[in-house]
């Protein structure tokens, strides 16, 4: 049983009140957040207020929904009305949105108990959470290792049992990669399945909000709750329900493995993924190998498109309307340049510069236009692949969580960690990362299941079946609230 349904049962059968439960999570945050640095802002008052409302409903015998009263967290780039939302950047310190993101509006209607906002790479640009203005989040399996990024705080909190679940955002792997590093489940929905309204933009054609949870059924419950069409996001279409299809038989399901996804992947990761393929075979699925040579261009295509969009999206931070403003300046241009130079971190500046470069006259055709064309080619290649298989199985990251401090030194080396996750964003497809083993040092290994457009039900079904067959891969850490 997943954490969400377990908590739901505990609340409904009155084993614990929502206020007690919320307090035990807040106590655990107090105890372990110093080491995990998962939360950048804890909101006990708001959490206890919602918990009180849930308890009142329970006391009056009213029925409660599956997510009601379940303590959770949001990545700090998801707008929360009246609650500081910083993207873990100096430039947004003090910024309190005046509206809620649609996903948070939907969850508030379900009386979700938000414990606080969680850590991330600055503006979601990074793969280790270490570009955060507040310092990186630690891995609950070994705090000398990174939690991954950019949704490192959510993954650390969920893996460390100081949130039952959380919402992250995934532009090039930012949900799946940290989920893989922290031994939890992370779903990046199809582009358009979940509204982006209120998600502070990094790269708008790639960004998507999704759940980070401890189990596949939890991911399914949260996805079903947030995947609604929203008129405030013109790219939102909504998703199809997944929960009632989780337990479908996967006999005869064709699971594809693209050989390119296994290139350059560490042996322990590759072994774990191929081991999982055997589990699928034992469940009656058919493993199909194929080639996807275009994948080797996915990473540069991703960085060109993401940085181009970021350079435009981040143009809005000018020190005038919100956030940080420099103190001493000489004229408007000087004020804006100083504000931005002092307010943005190194990696953000690097990506703005690269984005501006690929969009500038003389380079636009060679980089941006070419990357957009290749994006079309990559989409076609996936469409073709799905003619011969139902879902694609791949590693989530070529390695397990690395030690702190190793990511910062070489940007390109760090970009390479995204090699297995970015193709999904480029093609707008859904992908879920689930745990599939541990390496010799006890660090979790993740694998991802990639689906057809709006095929969340299929990949979660396949993921759930694996979880049932290999429950020992999904385990608790020493941290946090024990249910």
């Amino acid at each position, binding site marked *: 049983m997943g954490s969400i349904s377990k908590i739901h049962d505990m609340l409904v059968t009155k084993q614990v009140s929502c206020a007690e439960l919320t307090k035990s999570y807040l106590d655990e945050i107090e105890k372990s957040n110093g080491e995990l640095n998962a939360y950048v802002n804890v909101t006990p008052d708001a959490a206890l207020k919602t918990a009180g409302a849930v308890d009142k409903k329970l006391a009056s015998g009213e029925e409660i929904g599956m997510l009601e009263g379940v303590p959770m967290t949001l990545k700090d780039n998801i707008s929360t009305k009246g609650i500081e939302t910083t993207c873990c950047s100096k430039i947004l310190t*003090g*910024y309190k949105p*005046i*509206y809620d993101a649609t996903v948070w509006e939907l969850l508030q209607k379900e009386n979700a108990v938000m414990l606080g906002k969680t850590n991330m790479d600055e503006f979601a640009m990074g793969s280790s959470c270490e570009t955060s203005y507040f310092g990186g989040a630690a891995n609950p399996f070994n705090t000398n290792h990174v939690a991954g990024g950019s949704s490192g705080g959510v993954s650390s909190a969920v893996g460390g049992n100081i949130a039952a679940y959380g919402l992250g955002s995934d532009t090039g792997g930012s949900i799946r990669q940290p989920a893989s590093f922290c031994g939890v489940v992370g779903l990046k929905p*199809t*582009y*358009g399945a979940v509204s982006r309204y209120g998600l502070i933009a990094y790269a708008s*054609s790639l960004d998507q909000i999704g759940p980070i949870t401890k189990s596949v059924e939890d991911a399914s419950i949260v996805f079903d709750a947030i995947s609604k069409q929203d*008129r405030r996001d*013109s*790219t939102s*279409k909504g998703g199809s329900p997944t929960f009632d299809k989780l337990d479908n038989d996967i006999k005869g399901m064709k699971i594809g493995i693209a050989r390119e996804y296994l290139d350059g992947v560490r042996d322990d990761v590759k072994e774990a993924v191929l081991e999982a393929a055997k589990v699928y075979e034992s469940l009656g699925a058919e493993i199909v190998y194929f080639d996807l040579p*275009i994948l*080797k*261009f996915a990473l*540069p*295509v991703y*960085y*060109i498109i993401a940085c181009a969009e970021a*350079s435009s999206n981040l143009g809005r931070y*000018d*020190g*005038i*309307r*919100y*956030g*940080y*403003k420099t103190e001493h*300046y*000489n*004229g*408007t*241009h000087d004020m*804006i*340049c100083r504000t*931005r*130079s002092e307010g943005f971190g190194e990696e953000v*500046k*690097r990506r*703005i*510069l*690269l984005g*501006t*470069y690929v969009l*500038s006259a003389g380079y636009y055709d060679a*980089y941006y236009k*070419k*990357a*957009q*064309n*290749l*994006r*079309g*080619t990559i*989409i*076609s290649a996936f469409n073709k692949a799905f003619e011969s298989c139902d879902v694609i199985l791949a590693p989530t990251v070529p390695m397990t969580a690395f030690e702190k401090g190793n990511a910062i030194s070489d*940007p*390109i080396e760090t970009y390479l960690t995204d090699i297995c996750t970015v193709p999904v964003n480029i093609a*707008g497809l859904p992908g879920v990362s689930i745990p599939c083993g541990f390496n010799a040092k006890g660090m979790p290994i993740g694998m991802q299941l990639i689906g057809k*457009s709006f095929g969340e039900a299929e990949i979660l079904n396949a993921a759930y079946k694996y979880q049932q067959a290999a429950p020992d891969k999904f385990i608790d850490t020493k941290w946090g609230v024990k249910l």
Partner: protein
Amino acid sequence: MVTREDVENIALLSKLFVPEEELDELTKSMQDIVDFADAINNAPASDEGFDNINNLSNVFREDEVVESFPSTEILKNAPEQAEDHFLVRNRE
């Protein structure tokens, strides 16, 4: 080839200051990233084109007048304001 002048020019377009002493280092770092991005020029030529993902099309709605945010709320986040407006900068 990324030159120091390129970086200075891009920084100006990006409204970012690069301190003189960091220019060489940044130029090198930019060159490395541009080399990495250059890999796409080895890709097979494609005229595939790209409009949008998942064939999403525009969603149109009636142009209705709805209430917006009060300016007092919006101004609360402004680092500086004057007379119910954003203050860009003080007069010298």
